C-alpha cells in the first residue's frame, strides 16, 4: 500500500465516519477576544450567543434540523491574530462567521470572508462603515448613526436647543456618535454652541469644564459618547464646578458602574439597545439566564449575542438550506425579525439592522428608568 493510497483511505474513512453528523451540521466560526481591549464586549456577547445556540441545539438544531458546531477562537484583541483565525475558520469549513465586537477586526475578517462568500456578522460593532466591505458583512447592534438620530430627536422633543459636543478622535465610536447626533440635532433646528476634544483615559477634565462654563451662549445640553473611565472623570469635574447642565450619552453608559456614581449621574439620559422591562422577552431572558448560569447578564451584549443566534436561525430557516450564499440573501431580506432585545430589519438597509433604540434615564440610587423607545427615521439617518 503506497503512502498516497493510505492517505486516501484514511481520508475516506474519516469522511465516512463523520458523514452522518456532517449532513446536518452547521459550522459557525466565532472570533472572540478573551484578553485585551475587546474582552468586555466579546466575552458577554459570546456567553449570550453560546447560551442560545446550546438551547437551539438541544431543541434539535437551527430550524429544528441543523446542529450547530461552534469553532471558537481567541483573537487576544490583536489584528494579526484576527486575520489568522478568520483564515483558519474558513479553512475548517465555517459556513458563517461571527466576528469581534468592533469595526477593526470585523473589517479585517470581512476582507477575507467576503471573497470566500461566507456571511459574517459582528458581535456588537456599531460603526456603520463596517458593512461597506461587502455584501456578506452584517451588523447586529443598532448602529451609531441610529443611536445618534434617536437621541437627537429625543433632545429636540424635550426642548433642548443649544448643545455642547464632547468627543474623542481616539476611536470611531467616541468620535462618530456625537457627530451623528450633532448632524440630526442641527437639522432639527438646534445649534452646536461649542465642541471639545478629549483623549481616551484623559485623567483631568477641568480645562474642558472651564471652557464649557465660559461658552456663550451657555449650552442647555452636553452630549458625549465618552466611556469609562473618561465619562466618570468628566461628569464629576462638571458637577464639581457647579454646572448642572443636562448630559446625554451613548449606550456605553448602560453599565452598573456608571449608574453607581450616584448624585453626579442622576438625571443623565443615554441610549441603549434594549431595556429589560418586567414581562417582556428581555426581562424573561434576564431571569432565565441568571437561573441557568448563575451570572446576571447586566449589559446588553449578552442578549444581543443571543439575538445573533436568532438572526442566523431565521436566515437559515428562510433560506431552507445552509448554503452560505442563500443564507446571506435570506439574512439581508429579513424584515421585522423577532429578537429578544428588540426586533430587527435588514431589508432595505446596507446590512446594519434597523432596530429600536431605547432612551433610559439614570437615577441617583443606581437604578435606571425606561424613558422611550424609537426607531431612527431612515430619511434622517446621517451617512456613515
Amino acid at each position, binding site marked *: 500500500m503506497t503512502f498516497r493510497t493510505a492517505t486516501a483511505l484514511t481520508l475516506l474513512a474519516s469522511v465516512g465516519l463523520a458523514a452522518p453528523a456532517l449532513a446536518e451540521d452547521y459550522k459557525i466560526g466565532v472570533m472572540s477576544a478573551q484578553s485585551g481591549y475587546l474582552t468586555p464586549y466579546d466575552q458577554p456577547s459570546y456567553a449570550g450567543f453560546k447560551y442560545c445556540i446550546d438551547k437551539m441545539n438541544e431543541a434539535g438544531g437551527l430550524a429544528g434540523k441543523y446542529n450547530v458546531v461552534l469553532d471558537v477562537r481567541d483573537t487576544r*484583541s490583536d489584528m*494579526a491574530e484576527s*486575520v489568522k483565525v478568520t483564515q483558519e475558520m474558513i479553512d475548517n469549513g465555517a459556513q458563517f462567521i461571527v466576528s469581534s465586537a468592533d469595526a477593526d477586526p470585523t473589517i479585517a475578517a470581512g476582507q477575507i470572508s467576503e471573497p470566500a462568500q461566507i456571511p459574517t456578522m459582528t458581535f456588537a460593532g456599531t460603526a456603520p462603515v463596517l458593512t461597506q466591505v461587502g455584501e456578506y458583512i452584517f451588523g447586529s447592534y443598532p448602529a451609531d448613526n441610529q443611536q445618534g438620530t434617536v437621541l437627537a430627536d429625543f433632545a429636540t422633543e424635550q426642548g433642548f436647543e443649544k448643545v455642547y459636543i464632547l468627543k474623542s478622535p481616539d476611536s470611531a465610536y467616541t468620535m462618530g456618535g456625537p457627530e451623528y447626533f450633532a448632524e440630526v440635532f442641527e437639522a432639527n433646528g438646534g445649534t452646536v454652541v461649542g465642541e471639545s476634544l478629549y483623549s481616551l483615559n484623559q485623567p483631568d477634565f477641568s480645562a474642558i469644564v472651564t471652557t464649557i462654563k465660559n461658552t456663550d451662549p451657555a449650552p442647555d445640553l452636553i452630549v458625549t459618547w465618552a466611556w469609562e473611565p473618561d465619562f466618570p472623570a468628566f461628569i464629576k469635574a462638571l458637577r464639581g464646578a457647579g454646572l448642572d447642565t443636562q448630559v446625554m450619552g451613548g449606550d456605553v453608559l448602560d453599565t452598573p458602574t456608571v449608574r453607581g456614581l450616584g448624585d453626579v449621574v442622576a438625571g443623565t439620559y443615554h441610549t441603549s439597545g434594549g431595556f429589560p422591562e418586567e414581562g417582556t422577552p428581555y426581562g424573561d431572558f434576564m431571569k432565565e439566564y441568571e437561573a441557568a448560569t448563575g451570572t446576571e447578564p447586566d449589559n446588553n451584549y449578552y442578549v444581543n449575542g443571543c439575538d445573533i443566534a436568532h438572526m442566523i436561525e431565521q436566515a437559515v430557516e428562510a433560506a431552507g438550506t445552509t448554503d452560505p450564499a442563500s443564507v446571506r440573501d435570506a439574512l439581508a431580506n429579513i424584515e421585522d425579525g423577532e429578537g429578544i432585545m428588540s426586533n430587527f430589519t435588514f431589508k432595505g438597509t446596507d446590512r446594519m439592522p434597523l432596530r429600536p433604540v431605547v432612551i433610559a434615564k439614570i437615577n441617583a440610587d443606581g437604578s435606571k428608568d425606561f424613558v422611550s423607545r424609537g426607531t431612527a427615521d431612515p430619511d434622517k439617518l446621517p451617512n456613515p
Partner: protein
Amino acid sequence: MTGPSVDLTQLSRRRAADQIGETVLLVALIAGISLAMWLVLGRTGERIATQMCVNVAAVVALSVFTGNSGIVSFGHSAFMAIGAYTAGLLTMPAGLQKMAVPMLPAFIAGHEMSFALALVAVVVVGLVVAFASGLPISRLQGASATIATLGLLIIVHSVLIGAREITRGSQTFYGVPRVTTFWVALGAAIAFAILARMFRESRWGLELRAVRDNESAAEALGINAQRARLVGWTVSGALAAVAGALYGHMLGAFSPHTFYFGLMFAMVAMLIVGGMATVSGAVVGVVVVTMLQDTVRQFEGGFTVAGVEMPSVFGLTTVALSVAILLVIWLRPEGLLGRRELRLPGFGALFRAFGPRAEPAAPVAVRAVAPLDVDGLSRSFAGLKAVDNATFDVPSARVTGLIGPNGAGKSTLVNLLTGQFRADEGRAHFGETDITALSPHTIAKLGLSRTFQNIRLFGNLTVFENVLVAALPHASGRADARARALREIEALDLGGEAGTYADNLPYGARKRLEIARCLAMEPAMILLDEPAAGMNPEETSDLADRLTALTETRGIGLLLIDHDLEFVNRLSSSIVVINRGAVIARGTPEEIRHNDAVIEAYIGRGRKTDNPQGALA
C-alpha cells in the same frame, strides 16, 4: 606578557568567514523553521510562518537601532504605521479607494501601484521621516532617548488620527490588497536578517556599538556619536517602515490603534526574549515567542489528556508569554542568545575562501609635527577654579610630563584639551588649529588622541573590533582600517586575544588595548591620563619601554599624566607641574626635582631640608 603567536594575516579572513557562517546559519534557521511549519501543519502552518516572518522583519528592523545603540525604542511601530498607510494608499484598487477614502488629496489618489513599486516609495518616505525625527532624537542618550521615541509614537498616532482625509482617522483603514504571502514574507525576513547583519558589521554599526559601550571614549577616537545614532536610527526606521508595509498587506485592514502600544510592546518583548545585542537574538526571540504562542493556543479551547478532559482556558497564551519573559529576565538577563550571534563551531571554516586577507599595515610615517600650545586656559566648577590660567606647550615627538598632587586639576585639563569640557577662558592650539571650542570627535580627527584615567574600552566588542572601530574614522577605507588595526594588535601583543571581548581581558591587556586603540588613529599626539595606574612594577616598566619606542619610531608627541613620579621622570624630556589648577613650574626633570614650589606642593612647607630627591625620585 606576550600572547601565543598568531598568524595575524588570517585574522580578518577567519573573522569574515565566521560572520558569513553565522549569517548563513541564521538564514537557514528562518527558512527551515518556516518551511517546516508549512510542511507539518499545512495551511495553518503556512499562515503562522507568514506572520512569524513579518514579525522577524519588524523585530530585526527594531534591533538595527536598539541592538546596536542599546537604546530601547518605542517609536518603531510609528514607522511601521507610516509604511503601512503609505503602501496601503498606493496599492489600493482605485475603485475601492474612492469609497474608503473619498477625500484623499489628488496626488496620492488612484495610483494602484504594484506592491514592489510601493515598497520603493515606502523606503523613501521611511528614510525622510526617520532622518527628520532622528535629528532631535540622536542628540539624546539612554532613557531620555527612549522617552523621546515614545513621544514620536504618540505624535505619529495623533497625526494618523487627525489626518482623516488620508487615513480615515481612528476608523478602520480597509481595502489594502493582501499580498504578503508566505514567500514574500519569508524573502523579506531573510533579506532583513542579512541587511541587519551587514549593518552591524559595517563601519556605522561598529561605531554605533562603540558609542553604546562608551560614548566619551568613542568621541575621543573621532567617532561622531550623534551622527552614528542618526545613521542607525534612519536605516532602522526605513526598514521598520518596509516591515510595516508588509504587515499592513498581510492584515488588509488596520487602524492607528493597530500600530500603537500593543504592537510595540509585543516587538520589544520578542527582542528581550531573544537578546537585544545580536541579530540572531531578534530572530530567535520572534521564533520562540511564535512557537510558544501557537503551541499554547492549540490547548486554549480545552483538550483531553489520558481520558481526562481539560476545560478551555482562554488567555493561556498571554500567561505563557508573560511567564517566558519573566523567566528570561530572571535567568538570562541578556536574552536567550546573550551577546554572541548564533553559531555552529567550525561552520565558518567552510566560508574561508570568501574572507578578505589582510596584512598588518606598514609602520606609519611620522605625521606632520603639531605641537600643542596651551594659553591661559581656565575652568571653574561652582566657584572652584579647577584649572586656573594654565599656560604651557607640549612639543611634538617628545614626551612631556604633567604632574601634580591629587585634585590639582590634571584630568580637568586633559578634558579641556580634548573637548570633553569647554574652557571658561583662554585658548588651546593644536598646530595651527584653535581647538578650544571644537567637539571631541573633531579634535580627535586632527590627530590629538587621549586615554582615560579609568580604562574605557568597548566591553561588548572584541579586541580586534575595538581597534578596528578606532581606525575606521581615520583610514582611507575598510581594508586600510583592517591593516592598521592588525598592525597595532601586533605592536601591543594582543594577537592571541584578538577575538576576546574587551570585558573579559585581564587588566594589563586592557591597558595595552587602550593604547593600541589610540595608535590605530595614527595620532600626532596622545594625552595619556595615568597609563600606569594600577600596574605592577614589571608592567609599568614594559609600558615605559613601549612608550619610548612610540616617540622614537613614530614621532608621536606624548603628554604623560601620572602619579608615578619615577615613571614620569624616566620618560619625560620636560615636565609641567600644576597645583590647585595653576601651573607652578616647568622645566627638565632635573630642574623640577629641585624646584621649591614643587616640593612644597607635594610634601608641604618646612620640610625641604629633608631629602627632596628621595621624595620626588
